[in-house]
Each structure stands twice: as structure tokens, then as C-alpha cells.
């Protein structure tokens, strides 16, 4: 059905999207690259010039940078482990025949639709607050001192907030995959005397592999850019304890108004994202072939 003219029409129809995405990608990237080698501070806009790799060197020599890199990895890794593990368990549980499944699913999926600043400020104030939070009330009722979540455990707190937001996503996808598993196969295994654990290990989990991969891939894309939650709660602190790479770049640009340094950070983030993306695309590509 692809005659010459329909091919031409197809090209024309794809062209605007491709052009827009190319511009969206290349123009800012080129500008970021340019600024990353320039001295450019919004506080002193008259002093400009080429600075070679100075901005990059500043990043690599800053102790905050390695902390931010570590925090980024801890955030992505922590949220992935929590959401995938709990997601599998919850999916297995609510896939059972239970009363009121429809309403129950609605409750479980709800946090995903809560915008990041709301999720963060509700959990920060109503739950984690050392004086008025619900967790503090529980601690005190049990006779303990309230935990200073954001002060003493900033990264864990952020991981907790983000996990709450993403757990529904993982659960929903894993549940969808679980529901496509044929019950005959499980029954046959059961009749052959396979226990609950070996059914999980040899039938259910292998069936879910693809869905688990997809959850990891998609969540990684979003988690690498986590911003709103940190902005709303810890602002990267105390000190730099919960500063991730995106937040560090944001601080350089907005607070320090050092465009050159922020741009260098941006380029570093792009390189990192490309390394991650390479593996992600390979995984997604393989999934797409099936």
C-alpha cells in the first residue's frame, strides 16, 4: 500500500515532529555546550570570555559533585528496589479473588496522580513534621522522641516520598502482567505438587520478567530527573546532604547564577543520561521486537 505519493505524504506528515524534536534537542544542547566553556555569571554579566575546562574542573573538584552523584544513584536505586519489590508483593496480593476489587484498585493507584509538590508537602508537613506530624504523634505515643526526618535522614525521606508516588505505577503494571498469566498453567503445576513458592519462582516471576524490565526502564527515565520533591522538601539540604545532580545544577543556575558552571553540569548530566539511555534503549528495543 505504499505507493510513491503516499510515501511522500507520509514524510511530510512526520516532518514537523522530527523538526521540532531536533530543534528542541540540538539548539539547547549546542547552547549548553557553548556556555559550559564560557565565563558567564548573571551577577557580573560584563566579565565574559572563554575559560576552557575551568567549569568542568570546578564540578569534578567539588565534593558536592560526588555527593550529588552518589545521591542520584541512591535515589534511583532505592526507589527502584522498594517499588519493584513491594509492587510484586502487592500485585500478587490484589490479584487474588477479593471483595471490592474495583474500589481497592482505585485506592492503590491514587498516589500516582498526586502531583509531586503536593505529595512532597503533604508527606513533609502532615506526616514527617517533628512537632505536628502524624509520625511524631506515633513516636510519642510509643514513648520515643520524634524522628527528625528531613534533618537527620534527608535522602531516606526523599526516597520514601518518591517511592510512595511510584509504587502504584509499578503495582499496576505488574498486576496487568500477572492477569495475563493463564490459570491452567498454574493449576497444572499445582496438581504436579508444586508448592506456592516454586510456583512463584518458576512460573509467576519468569512470566513477569518483561513487565519488571519495563517498570525499571520507565521509572529510571523519570527518576533521573526527580526535582519537585526535593525542591519542596529539603531544598537539597541540610547542607548538601540531599542534593542530586539535577538539583546541584539548578542551584548553580538559579541561586549562584553561574550559567557557565551550570552548563558544564548540564553536559555532565547529558553524558550520564546517555550511558543509562544506551542500556535502556537496548532493553526497550528488545521488548519491542517481541
Amino acid at each position: 500500500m505504499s505507493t510513491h505519493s503516499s510515501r511522500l505524504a507520509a514524510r511530510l506528515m512526520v516532518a514537523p515532529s522530527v523538526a521540532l524534536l531536533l530543534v528542541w534537542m540540538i539548539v539547547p544542547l549546542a547552547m549548553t555546550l557553548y556556555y559550559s566553556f564560557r565565563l558567564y555569571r548573571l551577577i557580573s554579566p560584563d566579565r565574559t570570555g572563554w575559560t576552557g575546562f575551568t567549569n568542568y574542573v570546578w564540578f569534578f573538584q567539588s565534593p558536592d559533585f560526588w555527593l550529588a552523584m552518589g545521591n542520584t544513584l541512591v535515589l534511583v536505586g532505592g526507589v527502584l528496589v522498594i517499588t519493584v519489590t513491594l509492587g510484586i508483593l502487592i500485585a500478587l496480593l490484589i490479584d487474588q479473588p477479593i471483595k471490592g476489587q474495583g474500589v481497592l484498585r482505585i485506592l492503590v493507584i491514587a498516589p500516582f496522580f498526586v502531583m509531586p509538590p503536593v505529595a512532597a508537602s503533604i508527606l513533609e508537613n502532615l506526616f514527617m513534621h517533628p512537632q505536628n506530624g502524624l509520625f511524631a504523634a506515633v513516636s510519642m505515643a510509643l514513648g520515643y522522641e520524634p524522628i527528625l526526618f528531613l534533618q537527620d535522614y534527608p535522602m531516606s525521606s526523599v526516597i520514601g516520598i518518591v517511592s510512595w508516588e511510584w509504587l502504584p505505577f509499578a503495582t499496576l503494571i505488574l498486576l496487568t502482567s500477572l492477569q495475563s498469566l493463564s490459570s491452567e498453567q498454574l493449576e497444572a503445576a499445582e496438581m504436579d505438587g508444586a508448592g506456592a513458592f516454586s510456583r512463584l519462582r518458576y512460573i509467576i516471576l519468569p512470566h513477569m520478567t518483561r513487565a519488571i524490565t519495563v517498570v525499571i526502564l520507565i521509572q529510571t527515565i523519570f527518576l533521573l530527573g526527580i526535582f519537585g520533591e526535593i525542591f519542596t522538601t529539603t531544598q537539597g539540604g541540610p547542607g548538601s546532604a540531599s542534593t542530586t545532580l539535577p538539583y546541584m545544577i539548578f542551584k548553580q543556575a538559579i541561586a549562584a547564577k553561574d550559567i557557565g558552571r551550570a552548563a558544564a553540569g548540564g553536559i555532565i548530566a547529558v553524558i550520564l543520561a546517555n550511558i543509562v539511555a544506551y542500556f535502556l534503549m537496548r532493553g526497550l528495543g528488545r521488548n519491542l521486537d517481541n
Partner: protein
Amino acid sequence: MARAHSPRRKLLTTLAAWTVALIIFFPVLWMILTSFKTEPSAVAMPPEFLSADWTLENYAEVWARSDYPRFFWNSVVISVGSTLLGLLIAIPAAWAMAFVPGKKTKDLLMWMLSTKMMPAVAVMIPLYLLFLKFGLIDTRIGLVIALMLMNLPIIIWMLYTYFKEIPGEILEASRMDGASLWGEIVHVLTPMALPGIASTMLLNIILAWNEAFWTIVLTTTKAAPLSAFIASFSAPQGLFYAKLSAASAMAILPILILGWFSQKQLVRGLTFGAVK
């Protein structure tokens, strides 16, 4: 996986599942409860539940703050606007790639998705400067453009996976009947593609409504949507919990309702058709 279970087991799993679901939902529930309490009651220690002072005052007060309706309206304009603009650009592209695929179509789709992986902070500075230059900072049109471009790959991908499922034979049949390209699109494809387009629209409105990077970086006051409003809603200690909760409830309610309608499509949409 529905198998025969004893009633006792069903009761136990029902109990366990509901406990888990309520724990997950609890922060939203607590927020809604808090939004109906008076401020002193909202921060009371130990927390008040049955004995709380209930009131509708917070909603009235938050709404009456002259700026709240504006934030709300900005959210509506930005999320719906960026989604419609994105659909306008993406529908022809997805249509062409689904029905007239070339050798490079798959690579092209992958490349489009890869633009999503560019960290937003990396393009933040140039975009900020460009927006500054063209006077787009703190304008709704600026945010519509930024969010449209951000979500364009997802819109194209979602539409593509939906269009892919429309059998090509139907097109050929209509072509045999002498339908023009335009007639084909209007009379044959559109009716079949509408459900897919609708779900794509729904999911992208949700994503745009909840976006919390560009909306914070590229706005100050005039065009700031609810995400930026809530992010900056931190008064000094205490005595604002009830109002914060009321503002938050109003910010998430429309999306919560839209989202519940679209949970099936959500899985497909966000996994680019890899999990159905």
C-alpha cells in the same frame, strides 16, 4: 488466575489487601480529612479524629485568596493547551509511521523517545535564556510550548501503538472503493482511532498537570500553575496545615478523577505498548 478458593481464604486475602490499600491511600485520606479541620484542630497533638472541629472554611478561604483561581486556571490552560497542540503535531506523524512505515521508522521512534531521556536540567539554562530573550518567561504560551515539546515523544508513541492496531486491510478496502486520502482519514481512520486519541489525550493532560520542573523554573507569578503554587506554599511552622490540605485537595482532585477513568490506558500508555 481466578481459581476456586475457600471462603475463609478469600476473607483473609480480602482483609490483607484492604489493609495494604488503605495504607497506600492513607496520606490522601488524611489530607482530605485535615482539609476539613480548623487550623488549631489540624495541628493538635495527639491528632484529632472524631473530636476534631470540622469546617468548610479552608476551601472558601483558599479559593477566596485572589490568586488561587488564577493558578487553577493556568493549570487548565497549560495542560489542555499543550496536549491539544501536541496531538495536532503528533497525529499525522504517528499515522504516517503506523500505516506507511519505512525502513527507518523504528529507529526514528527510538530516537524520538531518546529525546525524553535528555535531563531537563541540561537544557534548562538555554531554554531559560531563550525564553527570557523572546519574552516567554512566566507566560502561559511559553509553558504550553515547553510542555508540548517535553511530552511530544510520549504522545507520538502512544498514538503509534494505538494506530498500529487498526488493520491495514480496512484502509485498502476503502481505497478500492475510491476513497481519497482525506476521505480515508475522516471517514475510516478517525472513528477507529478516536478511543486511542482520547486515552492519549487523557494521559498527557495528567502528565502536564503534574509536571513540576518547567512549571517551577519558567514561571514566577502570572503564569504559574498549581504545581508551582503548592511548591511555594510553605508558611512558617504550623497553623497552615488545613489550608495547605484544602489547596492540595483542590489541586489533585480533577486529575484523580481523570486518572481513575484512565487506569487501563495508563499501563499501555506509559509502557509504550510493551505491557497490555
